């Protein structure tokens, strides 16, 4: 009996270890399969053509710059909206909300995080874009701006919950010391708590932006799907097309193994690398923070 116990424990431990390491395996597999379909793009389409400003696959124009530009415009717009609102909301929840308000707010933010992006896009088509069209007197409300507003909604829960965690983690004694020195609660929040939570808040903002760049369905439904190179601030009120939306909209119609098919996977590689950069940086900040707090405590 002793022996079989050992054997089964050995097997189970191995399985558990395998599950742990599977995360690394999956990331590598995702990268491998994107590369295996996408990297041939570099031999099929000249770099100069790939970096041109014309995306018109039917006539073999595969310039991805308008799509990168579209993603940038929408994401920057979303960031400008979501960062201040998200940060202030996190401060409210973490610092001054009465217990009752806190208990209502936190689940509601989670509800926003759980709303399917397709539902937001659906309301974007029916409610938001007609409203924007009237408000700004535009030919169409399906613009980068509509996308930016909805993406802000998608980035908000990430920004709020992670920065709230960071604010919560600031030791009580910091606040007490500041208040004891005669600072008001507001001064304490602004000059003590927020700076102390800085790296966590930055992580939150980065991960929020990461979510916004990667969001697909909402932007595909409300941004009007026009792969035009954005130029200046005006672009915010014109239809545009992001990298994610291009993949989602066109993959269904391309022949497998065609150049167009490969270019769509190539765009996938670009998106993968962007999210890799964002997340590795964010986790590096997190790990450094952990180390520093361990150092302080020891």
């Amino acid at each position, binding site marked *: 009996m002793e022996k079989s116990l050992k054997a089964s424990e050995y097997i189970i431990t191995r399985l558990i270890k*395998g*599950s742990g390491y599977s995360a*690394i395996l999956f990331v590598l597999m995702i990268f491998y399969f994107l590369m295996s*379909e996408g990297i041939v793009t570099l031999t099929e389409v000249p770099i100069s053509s790939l970096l041109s400003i014309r995306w018109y696959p039917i006539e073999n124009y595969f310039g991805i710059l308008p799509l990168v530009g579209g993603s940038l415009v929408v994401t920057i717009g979303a960031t400008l909206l979501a960062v201040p*609102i998200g940060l202030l909301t996190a401060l409210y929840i973490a610092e001054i909300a009465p217990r009752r308000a806190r208990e209502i707010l936190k689940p509601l933010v989670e509800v926003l995080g759980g709303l*399917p992006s397709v539902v937001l896009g*659906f309301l974007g088509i029916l409610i938001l874009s007609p409203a924007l069209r009237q408000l700004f007197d535009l030919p169409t409300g399906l613009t980068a701006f509509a996308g930016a507003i909805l993406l802000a909604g998608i980035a908000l829960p990430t920004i709020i919950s992670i920065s709230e965690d960071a604010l919560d983690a600031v030791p009580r004694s910091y606040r007490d010391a500041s208040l004891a020195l005669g600072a008001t609660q507001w001064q304490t929040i602004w000059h003590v708590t927020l700076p102390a939570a800085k790296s966590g808040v930055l992580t939150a903002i980065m991960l929020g932006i990461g979510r916004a760049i990667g969001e*697909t369905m909402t932007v595909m439904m409300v941004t009007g799907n026009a792969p035009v190179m954005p130029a200046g601030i005006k672009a915010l009120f014109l239809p545009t097309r992001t990298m994610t939306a291009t*993949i989602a909209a066109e993959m269904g119609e391309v022949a497998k193994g065609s150049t167009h098919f490969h270019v769509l996977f190539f765009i996938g590689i670009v998106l993968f690398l962007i999210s*890799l950069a964002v997340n590795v940086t964010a986790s590096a900040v997190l790990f450094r923070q952990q180390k520093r707090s361990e150092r302080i405590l020891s």
Partner: protein
Amino acid sequence: MIRRLSKNRLLIQKMGFGLLTAAAVLTVFPIVLVVIYILWMGAPAISWEFITGFPRDGMRAGGILPAIVGTVLLTLGTAIFAVPIGIGAAIYLSEYAPENKWTRLIRIAIINLAGIPSVVYGLFGLGLFVLFMKFGTSILAGSLTLGIMTLPVIISTAEEALRAVPQSFRIVSISVGATRWQTIRRIVLPQAFPGIITGVILGLERAAGETAPILFTVAAFFLPRLPHSPFDATMALPYHLFVISTQVPGMPIKLQYGTALVLLVFVLGMNFLATTIRSRERAKRQW
């Protein structure tokens, strides 16, 4: 002079607090509005036929049963793949993993999995499951894709639940002669169970509402029958809502809101379940 200064400071504080409160209201108000609006507009579409019938007239009439069944099957399929691996990985990270480079690499990998855009998961599923493994556009391919996408949510919440179990529980169990696995199986897992379930439901909630990963791996535009095997394609609620709100001209608005309502109830129902389990468990917890 001093009094004036402090009065100013308090005024600034008051304005500051007003700003924070306004931001919170600005965040929350649209959420409540969206949920209520969809409930309000969608309710008239809900009928027995809508829930249990097949689409007719090019989806402009009839019900959405195949989409509901498809989403339920995809959610179950996702659970079959993601739950064992996710909980296993969480046990490894919380109970076994040494603090070294490899563990750090696993954590970075998990953070990255969480950040990869959903449409990139769709490309990956298309490349690996649909084309390379030749599953075709099928429930199997879609579930596997959604399963990998769901893993990071399950791993991180389950790990948190496991870590919350006090160390003394483990020490006592080991000291009376239990092995490490026996301790985990009999002591740690039961204590962490509600927290783990919460994580699993939150992960599956995300999978149920996603559209981009299933676009090229499983979703059928219009398939008015129920799937027979894991190798069948199927309709699914999020994709169906996308189709009827953008691809079908002359689609009755009532049915669009009805579909949005069913999807919302499905997803928010899971959300509610998860938060209820969590708050109940917190209230009951004795350590």
